[in-house]
């Protein structure tokens, strides 16, 4: 039972001052084992805050990140799953499923987490799953102003992943869940 937080596109301090208080009250240290962050934090203070939630922090570079040392893409293995991470502004057209699927095949991962569009999405295609955690602060994106703050928490348990989607809609936190299993055959490429 591994809890992985997928979060990103915070754009602090340029487009948003901080995480919504309701999100902040839920994110306490000690519960989450890994944090994967799509990028665009943008400053070191946010990096430190995320690090205080969980020491295992993985970040990729967004186009507004002040720290230039973050990698463009990252892959990691958690349990039975391979996860890939990328901010998403590099993949054109932005948010397009086929292009993201291409990136997923390149990285050879089961779950690809990318952002940039500030819209939560969860797609499945035959190569695997693509998850976009959206923007945790609700900052405006290059595409739209109408953004609901959201992030994603994945519970990886053997061959099964339960994805909990946290969204702030009209000031209330709404949690949805998505279930999927990795078929054993998919593991053998």
């Amino acid at each position, binding site marked *: 039972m591994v809890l992985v937080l997928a979060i990103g596109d915070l754009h602090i301090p340029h487009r948003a001052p901080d995480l919504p208080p309701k999100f902040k009250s839920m994110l306490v240290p000690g519960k989450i084992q890994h944090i994967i962050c799509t990028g665009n934090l943008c400053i070191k203070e946010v990096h430190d805050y995320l690090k205080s939630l969980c020491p295992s922090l993985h970040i990729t570079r967004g186009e507004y990140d002040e720290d230039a040392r973050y990698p463009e893409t990252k892959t990691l293995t958690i349990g039975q799953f391979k996860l890939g991470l990328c901010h998403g502004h590099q993949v054109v057209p932005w948010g397009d499923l086929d292009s993201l699927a291409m990136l997923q095949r390149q990285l050879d991962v089961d779950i690809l987490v990318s952002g940039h569009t500030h819209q939560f999405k969860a797609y499945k295609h*035959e190569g695997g799953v693509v998850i976009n955690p959206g923007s945790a602060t609700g900052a405006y994106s290059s595409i739209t102003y109408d953004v609901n703050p959201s992030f994603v928490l994945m519970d990886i348990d053997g061959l099964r992943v339960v994805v909990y989607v946290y969204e702030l809609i009209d000031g209330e936190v709404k949690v949805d869940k998505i279930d999927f299993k990795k078929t054993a055959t998919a593991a053998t490429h």
Partner: protein
Amino acid sequence: MVKKAVPDWLNSSLWYPPPSSAARPGSSATNAAASSSESDAAPPDHSTETVPVPVPLPPSSAVRAEPPEVEIRDPLSDDSDNGASGSPTSTAEDISRQAQILQELSRKVINMGELRRLASQGIPDGAGIRCTVWKLLLGYLPTDRGLWSSELAKKRSQYKHFKEELLMNPSEITRKLENSTSLENEEPKCETGGVLSRSEISHGEHPLSLGKTSVWNQFFQDTEIIEQIDRDVKRTHPDMHFFSGDSEFAKTNQDALRNILIVFAKLNPGIRYVQGMNEILAPLFYMFRNDPIEEHAAFAEADAFFCFVELLSGFRDHFCQQLDNSVVGIRSTISKLSMLLKQHDEELWRHLEVTTKVNPQFYAFRWITLLLTQEFNFADSLLIWDTLLSDPEGPQETLLRVCCAMLILIRRRLLAGDFTSNLKLLQHYPPTNISHMLYVANKLRSHPAR
């Protein structure tokens, strides 16, 4: 200050085990047997007569009436001597007692009073007798032999149930709940592409939930206790291979201890887990796991759990911090011990508490809460537990008498010492003749107050 005379009976040399002279038959054999290391999985040897009191018993025992040594030995061997296997005088005694206990155990309906009487003299080590007797004394096994197998089966499956229910992590719990509610959703995601369907979560059951009723929240709150249990289990009896070390065997035993304590903590939210419970559990589990009957040893965990609950039920209040100052709490028990000492040996009591100001809390706390497991070596504490469990007065009263006996036995050293030396002595109680000590404790009961 009028010095209250020490009562005569206290002065008799009956109180003092014979000094370690060669006149003691068979003691050398027992000494050799006693040093068998505890690292064997076999039940520990009796080490009753291991170390004759090394204490500076001044040879002025000549001052008192000095019956020849033989006389002193006999009452000991008759009453409470368990007879280490090497000693010639006690073997016959030992065998006869073993036979008596076995005979009692083989009756259809066991007479608890008789069993208690036999057990209080010490339970012999062989043939898993102690396991069965302890289970009977703690009420785990009913007195009617015919009911044993059904009772055992019932209890063991109940424990298995507890484990399954309480040791599951929240992912598994939510999965189970789902599986039971939506049975037709076997493979909903065989679509090859497209947006994944979202399902709404009801009643805040998500990992970051801060709700009190949330499974996840409870899980994270329990993690702290589980970590504490983990740490204590790893530290239990580091000198015994049974409990510690890298072997598979030790690891499975530690896991069993951990499971029992976690299940107990979850079933008892009022008291949860307190440091020290692992020490009370350890001898129980050790005994049951080393039961020569394979079938029982396999279920040692379940048996130990129920016996642990039963044993702790009398002492629960000692572990509850809020009850510390109440009538049932640990402080009150310690003051009972103090009163008992005053009743039987006022001179010592006055010297300890008034003159040298050794507050009984400094030493008696550990004696009482951990049921003397930390003061003596493992084998000796099993013997003490035989007496504690079998006494009809109940373990609490018996424990106080044994503690009082412990104090009285070293009275000469205590009377001669100041605060520092007395405290040191009491916190590292010197090795002593256990059967003698139990004999003294027994005498404290029948003696009227002076």
